[in-house]
């Protein structure tokens, strides 16, 4: 069995930042493995550990900088990694959902996995759409926002819990092959061990261009563009308690007593 896990290196903005044009100034961004993808990696790796002959391959679309993130996935137990990047991708203004799905679909066609795991969404732009769009493109069945997975490999069924709003899970049986978008909390992602990190250096990490998959820059054409980015006007009209911790705690204590919700 083969599991393909899509991973994304995401940018997080520092508390204080400046906007430069249509994005946050690079100086104020820190990069890391997308939180949801960390859970997707763990889910795939733990299935591989429990089963016989399960290969876990990760794929990312991203620049050379993203290799750090990819190596992290390898260190956690992914067997092999693919990074798709070329000049056309580097100069694309925006990778919209359709473009991502088309690129990943080409990778799926080449790799022929039984399961594809994606994170529910990415920390940075939070579109939350790539996994389901990919499933439709490649003709796989799917389930979005999975927080529990029981796999019946021989029966070709993934029994999942989908985390709905309001503390309710939906129980669904999904035919495989399938794309599952993995929710945080489904497992406990491991930390990479030193041994894992050493091993990761020797694991294959192939860099592919769009052309390697028979794609060209037309796959990146999109009617969707970002035309503005700005800091929303603060709506805060909070009363700020000033002073050292004892003083602010004292003011808060007075407030709670005034409200009559505490004794003492």
């Amino acid at each position, binding site marked *: 069995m083969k599991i393909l896990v899509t991973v994304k290196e995401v940018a997080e903005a520092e508390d204080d930042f400046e906007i430069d044009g249509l994005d946050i100034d690079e100086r104020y961004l820190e990069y890391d493995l997308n939180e949801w993808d960390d859970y997707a990696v763990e889910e795939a790796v733990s299935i591989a550990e429990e089963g016989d002959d399960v290969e876990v391959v990760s794929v990312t679309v991203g620049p050379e900088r993203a290799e750090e993130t990819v190596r992290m996935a390898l260190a956690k137990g992914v067997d092999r990694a693919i990074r798709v990047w070329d000049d056309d991708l580097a100069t694309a203004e925006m990778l919209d959902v359709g473009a991502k*799905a088309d690129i990943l679909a080409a990778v799926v066609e080449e790799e022929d996995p039984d399961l594809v795991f994606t994170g529910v969404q990415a920390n940075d732009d939070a579109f939350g759409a790539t996994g389901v769009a990919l499933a439709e493109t490649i003709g796989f069945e799917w389930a979005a*926002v999975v927080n529990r997975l029981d796999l019946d490999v021989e029966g070709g069924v993934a029994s999942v819990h989908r985390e709905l709003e*309001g*503390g309710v899970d939906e*129980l669904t*049986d999904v035919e495989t092959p399938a794309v599952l978008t993995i929710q945080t909390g489904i497992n406990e992602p491991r930390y990479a061990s030193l041994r894992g990190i050493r091993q990761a250096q020797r694991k294959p990490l192939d860099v592919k261009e769009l052309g390697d998959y028979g794609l060209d820059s037309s796959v990146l054409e999109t009617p969707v563009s970002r035309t503005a*980015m700005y800091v*929303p006007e*603060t709506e805060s009209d909070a009363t700020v308690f000033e002073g050292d911790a004892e003083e602010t705690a004292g003011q808060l204590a007075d407030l709670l007593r005034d409200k009559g919700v505490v004794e003492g």
Partner: protein
Amino acid sequence: MTDVLAIAEHRRGSLRDVSFELVTAGRELADARGGDLHLAVVGGDVDAFAEELNVEGVDTIYTVDEGEEFNHDVYVQVAQQLIEEVEPSTLLLPNSVNGLDYAPAVAERLGVPIVTDAIGVAGDDPLEVTREMYGSKVETTIEVDAPELVVTIRSTEWDGAEGEGSADVQSFEADVDESQVRSTVTGFEEAGGGDVDIADADVLVSVGRGIDEEENIVLVEKLAEALDATLSSSRPIVDNGWLPKNRQVGQSGKVVTPKVYIAIGISGAVQHVAGMKGSETIVAINTDPNAPINDLADYAIHDDLFDVVPALIEEFGGESPL
């Protein structure tokens, strides 16, 4: 091609609030483009749902009698057939867990762009969608220069539509190919974790990522005890297994409306805010004065929780455990 088609959401016999918010957003958009607003409801007791959904602003309601509960394989097919019938410029869907389980597939099948989690939609051509990025730190304008598209809207960003409507209610016969239905919903399960109901509490001491380590949870437990309050949390605390699921406030947890909500080390991600913004009084203790939680807070302390919380425990005669 200026019409808007929205598809309502229901679960276990009830329409979800976002269905009525879709009407408000859809009406705005249809007016801006000079078109009609069509609303469809798929599965369940569609006639009763249609009656409920017949609020001000809806031009047509399509009832599609297919199944009881949401199934994405059915919804994708029905959406596609409704679009062929109605020919809308915009398909408007909820940015809910179920909305995101079929909206991207519909867009992909039709070969049209999708923009998710909209918090604003301006009707000019091209359509401009407002959405957030980087954990609500910034807003962006996304322009879509296409004759047709799919947009999902964030819940509670638009008011729910009310008032008596005069929609034309029609039954729509969908032709669902069962061989393309490859998933089966077998049931529902409530989150467990004991018998504490955080929704009943007058005062909630709620803890988030800022608590850093599991062994620090004892600090907020002690505060809750000193205040005779109930302990709740944001999602990461539950994901980490530091508190049980029934303590989680937010979209995927509980919606709470206590007299006082004390958010400790919680930045205020939108999913969390959805669960606590109805609280009477909100207090935020957070080192970051720009954290989104401050937009909601009535009172704020911009200081280290590891200094403030022990002092607060002592104010109420307790002793800090750290």
